[in-house]
């Protein structure tokens, strides 16, 4: 907290009410807002994240990051004439006591910012809610399932609403934690990618992180002082996550030196990998079952789902090879499901077109488009 009676270091007029976590400067509210927004604007323009006329789906969970993102994007879009068509996209994982409440928040955001909202749920897409998954697999590796499924769900939802870009609220702390986690796990390919501000540019649905250099604490302060409406409980299953370790370190580093967080992100950007490491990177292709973008014959979501449905919860998590090193899922298996109804294992080939085929037909107005599935080979959990 700034000392009593201190003046803002930016405008030198108003009283300083807070100390910026990133720089420890004492600033007044207005200057803080201005600085925060200016930094995000600088991030957006210097990296060329958006082009005028794009339809951008803002991934909204109702939490602080995505609420502030929606707010700031709306503000900057208007102030600097980005010319973007903004949409809110929300994913319902089916975690009771957590997600249902946060979804209410997002619905309020829709009204507050005047941005249309679409909700896509795991139940519809995969036939399983997170609660059901955790009941099946226990408390370990929940984040693996949730994360893999969410990524696909976001992509499918964005395609549904006709967006050409997804904006997520990942902040500097998130990216720094990811960098540390990947180092601990020895995941070299991910380490090379995780600090990119924009991923998947070569696919038709890139994702960008406008908050990449914004501190989590500053986002919280922004939301607090702007009195933004957000939902602030952590996920029920979070205490079991490995990310907690990295998170603690990040918080300690921040206390030791505020710029350490941004330094971690910059270090990751500066990593130069040896050529030998580069060669081992997988090349993208599409899943043989559901057509989703993947580096393996069958995408991770299909593998995980197969495990869930077959009662092999470790499939795709710790068991990644079948007997004698064979790939864990045979390609032919899923095909039968596309026919007369049985295949619960495959991610259903629903009317949501795969991201590869340009789904311009599915534009606007199709709120909750997944609910209006055409008849045919759609398998849902309810069928079992």
């Amino acid at each position: 907290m700034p000392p009593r009676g201190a003046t803002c270091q930016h405008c030198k007029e108003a009283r300083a009410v807070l100390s910026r976590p990133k720089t420890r400067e004492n600033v007044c509210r207005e200057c803080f807002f201005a600085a925060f927004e200016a930094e995000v604007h600088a991030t957006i323009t210097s990296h060329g994240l958006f082009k005028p006329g794009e339809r951008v789906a803002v991934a909204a969970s109702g939490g602080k990051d995505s609420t502030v993102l929606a707010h700031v994007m709306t503000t900057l879009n208007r102030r600097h004439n980005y010319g973007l068509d903004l949409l809110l996209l929300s994913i319902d994982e089916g975690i009771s006591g957590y997600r249902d409440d946060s979804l209410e928040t997002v619905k309020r955001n829709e009204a507050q910012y005047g941005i249309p909202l679409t909700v896509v749920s795991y139940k519809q897409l995969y036939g399983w809610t997170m609660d059901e998954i955790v009941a099946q697999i226990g408390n370990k590796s929940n984040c693996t399932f949730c994360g893999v499924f969410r990524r696909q769900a976001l992509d499918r939802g964005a395609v549904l609403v006709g967006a050409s870009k997804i904006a997520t609220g990942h902040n500097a702390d998130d990216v720094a934690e990811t960098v540390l986690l990947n180092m601990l796990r020895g995941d070299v390919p991910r380490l090379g990618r995780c600090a990119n501000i924009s991923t998947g540019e070569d696919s038709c649905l890139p994702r960008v992180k406008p908050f990449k250099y914004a501190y989590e604490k500053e986002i919280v302060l922004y939301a607090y002082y702007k009195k933004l409406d957000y939902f602030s409980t952590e996920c029920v299953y979070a205490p079991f996550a490995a990310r907690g370790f990295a998170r603690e370190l990040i918080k300690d580093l921040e206390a030791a030196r505020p710029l350490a967080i941004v330094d971690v992100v910059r270090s990751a950007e500066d990593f130069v990998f040896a050529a030998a490491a580069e060669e081992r990177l997988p090349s993208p292709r599409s899943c043989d079952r559901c057509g989703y973008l993947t580096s393996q014959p069958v995408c991770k979501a299909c593998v995980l789902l197969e495990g869930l449905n077959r009662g092999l919860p470790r499939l795709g998590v710790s068991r990644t090879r079948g007997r004698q090193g064979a790939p864990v899922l045979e390609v032919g298996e899923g095909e039968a499901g596309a026919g007369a109804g049985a295949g619960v294992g495959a991610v259903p080939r629903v009317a949501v077109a795969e991201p590869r085929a340009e789904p311009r037909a599915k534009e606007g107005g199709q709120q909750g488009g997944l609910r209006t599935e055409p008849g045919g080979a759609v398998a849902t959990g309810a069928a079992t």
Partner: protein
Amino acid sequence: MVRLREPLCQSCLETSVSGKVRGIKSAKLLQPRDHVALAFSGGCSSAALLLCVLPMRKDAATPRKERGKIEFDLSVIHIDESAAYGISPAAAAAHVAEVRALAAAAGAVHPAASVHVVPLADVFLPPHTPAPAPAPVPTTAPAQAPLRSDAAAADAAAAGAGPAATAAAAAAGDAAGLVARLGLGAGGAGAEPAAAQGRGSAAEGCRSGAEEGGRGGGGIAAGADPDVGSSGAAEREERLRALLQSVRDPTGREDLVRALRALLLGRSAAALGACCLLRGDTTSALAARVVADTAKGRGYALAGDIQLVDARGAGGGQPPLIYPMREVTAKEAAFVCLLRGLRPATLPAPPASCRSINLLAGEFIESVQANVPSTVFTVLRTATALQPFPFNAPEAMGRGGPPPAPSERPRRGAARKQAAAATVAEAEAGVAEVGGRAEAVAEAGAEAGAGAGADEVGSSGSSLGVGAGRGLVVPPLCMLCRAPLSGREREAIARAEAARAATVAAGVGEGEGEGEGEGEGGGGGGGGAGGGGSSVLLLVPSPDPAPAVGCGRARHGPGG
């Protein structure tokens, strides 16, 4: 029980650890008739390293070849940092005695090895290198004051008082001969006055840096430097203390000590005529280093710091570093010492109130390692996937590997003279420049010295690199921490130089220009502080006028 579930007996543990250290012999990094220096902190890792290296040495008793042993000379160097921690002289002397006793207990006694203790404050001495005689100082006299290798000849010359003179006098006779033989007199020093200036102005941010540089340059020729001598020692220690206290950021302070220590180790080893310097960093230390470096924005330079060989000092006349303990965990090293009954001699840790990034990284790695014993190896392996620098190749040591193409590389002796001449010329040209720059730096009150110095070394570094004639091209290095400068940093330096040349007086104006010129998405619009960690902090005025120092690359928030 060094690994979680595998009990090992003492001899198996020692075999496995020393086997890894012996790897440097099979990799031809250590060869007969080498003079090897070993950096000895008094901790478990360096003690374990010493324990493993000594048996590799062939005793000169018999001329017969002994199986698995090599003839080499070993010098054990300990940098005494007690002044940096404000420890009382009595406690400091006791600590040094402990270190010597430990080295002796490990077997580093004449004729196997010689032990040298150098106080950290000696880093301020002009590095003209009158070396002590190769005959080692007997380790059985702990009351003797630490031998100051650099001060020795000047002491004798000035007929200085103090116990150091006794040992020095004996050495002085040889010193001149040694200097002539090594050819390091003028040449090796040439590169360093720039270093002294750069460091002086960077660290102190005041004009005395420029003066010191001038004096340093003159001191080589004159030799009648009032700074040298036993009275000078107290002055140097005071100066060291003042320097360290001027750094408010705990991490920055630790990094500064580390950089000074490394510089002094390299110089001392070079003064002794060593051809390589062994360091005892374990896997655990290197893994902690990876995490800490990442947290300081050193992602570009990281790859060069964690390899087996580090020959970047070649341009400055410093011997290459080797890390034989790279694949040994700290726990293994500790057990080796414990089982041999050796107790490490370490300085008391600083108070917990200032938890530096280095400390946090170390604790983090330890705690994860406790649960997952492969962590340190995984982290190191991940970092090893990064592209190393040319100075990390074993060939950069100038030995082993395929012979260089004859057309490109002049003979070693000729090359060294060439390098020496080149550096002197560069340095002399640089002296005036840097002196002028240092003043402009002082205006801005930031650690621009590092930037300016780095730029200087950048140009001299590359000419040195080529001139060194081994075909080793050393990229431009940061003046203080010797990290290779990334493209972004070099651009920033070049831009700052241009900006400063354009507008000399307006420090604030340039700062603004810098901030926008950076154009990094990391909130460059937010002015100085928001600009992101790894840019070189040149002329951006920090809101807090007190200089925050460490390496020129990381930017520190105002206040501690």
